[in-house]
């Protein structure tokens, strides 16, 4: 078990190293970092000096090593556009994104699991058919259209909820600014989190439903019935638990995608998160911000994957046995 975890950590480290390499090349070879940093009046001599000072004349491998060491210490350089340390910018924007993703994940998992269970267990109920039809909308409409639609209905027409921003935020210790402690903050997060969660809700719902239908046909469910177990125990104890491995996989990946997809949602709702920061960075070829964002998102994915792998063990004894051997 410990071996397996070490092995997976090692794998994760390799993945991160590759991502770092890509970020590094992005940083060094997309445009000339020096001319990106300096103004137009700088002399060639000054530029050469700066190049020397920043170590850009060192061999690539040395530069990469330095890049890794800096990144490990949370140092991603200076934003070209804003002339401030990238890690500061990210730290400012991260709470907004993570809160959005957190609320969306709760919505997606909550509604996805409930809807998946209902449509899987009560296949011919009219409400199941209704849910499935509407969930098609969730899959087929692009996020930004749903966002704009929601803004139009709830912000413009009904004027119930704000159409942009985070509302009032409260600064917590450690530099975390939260919008979840104020009424206006909660109002502001409703539309973007629903927009962001819709696609993932649908996916989770459908995977649970189809896994459930599959499991309900298995012999051990038939045998559980033949043993006279209560349908509650059969549905939630045996059937649901046996759908968990694929569901955990999909859910984990989907939470990762929430972070990635939040770029679009943040743009539509002018949500002051990392995604919006990234979009601006792309527009200005602000490479340090882009590469830092890339590394961070990769890190989230890797961590989620690791958690997913560990959850398998909690759920499935066969995997535990496999690893032991």
């Amino acid at each position: 078990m410990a071996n397996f975890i070490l092995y997976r950590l090692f794998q994760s480290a390799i993945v991160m190293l590759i991502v770092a390499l890509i970020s590094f090349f992005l940083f060094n070879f997309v445009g000339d970092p020096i001319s990106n940093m300096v103004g137009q009046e700088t002399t060639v001599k000054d530029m050469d000096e700066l190049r020397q000072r920043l170590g850009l004349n060192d061999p690539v491998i040395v530069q990469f090593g330095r890049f890794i060491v800096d990144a490990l210490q949370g140092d991603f350089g200076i934003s070209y556009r804003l002339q401030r340390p990238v890690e500061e910018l990210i730290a400012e924007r991260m709470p907004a994104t993570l809160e959005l993703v957190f609320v969306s994940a709760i919505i997606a998992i909550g509604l996805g699991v409930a809807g998946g269970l209902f449509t899987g267990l009560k296949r011919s109920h009219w409400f199941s058919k209704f849910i499935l039809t509407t969930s098609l909308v969730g899959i087929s409409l692009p996020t930004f259209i749903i966002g704009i639609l929601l803004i139009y209905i709830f912000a413009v027409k009904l004027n119930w909820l704000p159409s942009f921003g985070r509302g009032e935020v409260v600064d917590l210790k450690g530099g975390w600014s939260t919008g979840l402690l104020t009424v206006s903050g909660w109002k502001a997060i409703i539309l973007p989190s629903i927009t962001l969660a819709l696609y993932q809700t649908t996916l989770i719902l459908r995977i649970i439903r189809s896994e459930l239908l599959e499991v309900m046909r298995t012999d051990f469910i038939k045998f559980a019935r033949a043993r006279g177990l209560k349908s509650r125990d059969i549905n939630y104890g045996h059937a649901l638990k046996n759908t968990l491995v694929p569901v955990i996989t999909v859910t984990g990946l989907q939470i990762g995608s929430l972070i990635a997809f939040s770029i679009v949602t943040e743009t539509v709702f002018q949500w002051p998160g990392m995604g919006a920061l990234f979009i601006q960075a792309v527009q200005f070829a602000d490479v340090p911000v882009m590469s830092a964002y890339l590394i961070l998102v990769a890190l989230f994915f890797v961590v989620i994957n690791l958690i997913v792998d560990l959850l398998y063990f909690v759920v499935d004894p066969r995997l535990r046995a496999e690893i032991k051997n």
Partner: protein
Amino acid sequence: MAVIDISNISIEFPTRRGVLTAVENLSLSIEAGEILGVVGESGAGKSLTGNAIVGLLEPPGHVTAGTILLNGRDITHLPESEMRKIRGAKIGVIFQDPLTSLDPLYTIGRQLTQTILTHKKMSHAEAKARAIELLNEVGIPAPEQRFDAFPHEFSGGMRQRVVIALALCCDPCLIIADEPTTALDVSVQAQIIDLLKNLSREKGVATMLVTHDMGVIAEAADRVAVIYSGRLAEIGDVRSVIDAPKHPYTRGLMDSIPQIGQNLKTLPNIIGAMPRLDARPEGCAFNPRCAKSKSICRQQTAPLIETGSDGQWAACWAYEGGNKYV
């Protein structure tokens, strides 16, 4: 009084192209301590009959006629909530594939105690003690240690023992074993059959043993029921049916087994195949394959007719003069 007494049941599936009568007018009964072997080709309706008894017919299939009496109580159309209390308590079921009958994510101990506690009021510790006693009874070595093992840690034969232990949890009076040994090695098959035999001898359990294997029938069953195309072709004492089969189909069945232990999914000695449910001929379903078919065979299904004094019955017009089962 028989433990289970099925009389004249029919099982139908409404489909888009009309109603399929999968089982028709079938009657059989099993006494306490008796093993009734049920044989017939694939698709004859053996499993459906077993499922109908425990109320596990897959919709839209349902019992449209006849009665099923369990210890004299009519359970034919019990509501699901009542039927659930009988399944696993009064009637134990064993399915064909022990590899897939157990939930892979729970220890066998948990599955046993869960079943016991569903049907009986007792403490968890008592349920555990009972579970270990059951494991011991079905021949699992070191049951205390194995209690916390998962299904994948057992061999096929051991898993089938666990399945049997699960079926025995609440001292059922009837066990329905649907091809309990088909998926197992020959040597393990014999052990499982011995186990079932002992249970019915020692505990007086009535057993319905569905199998394709005439060797198993000869070895374990007291009586045999032969089903052909959803109808009972013949029923009687195991020796009489094997040694002196009365229904032409049973005769073909016995002839096509050169030696005991051979599988009878296909019948080389009888020309043709069992008709599909939606293409059953008029009269006796076997008449197109029967060398002795008469005109009445093509017009009317034969009732069960007593063919001798030893409780052997055959649904064949050749015995027209005898006592008819109603």
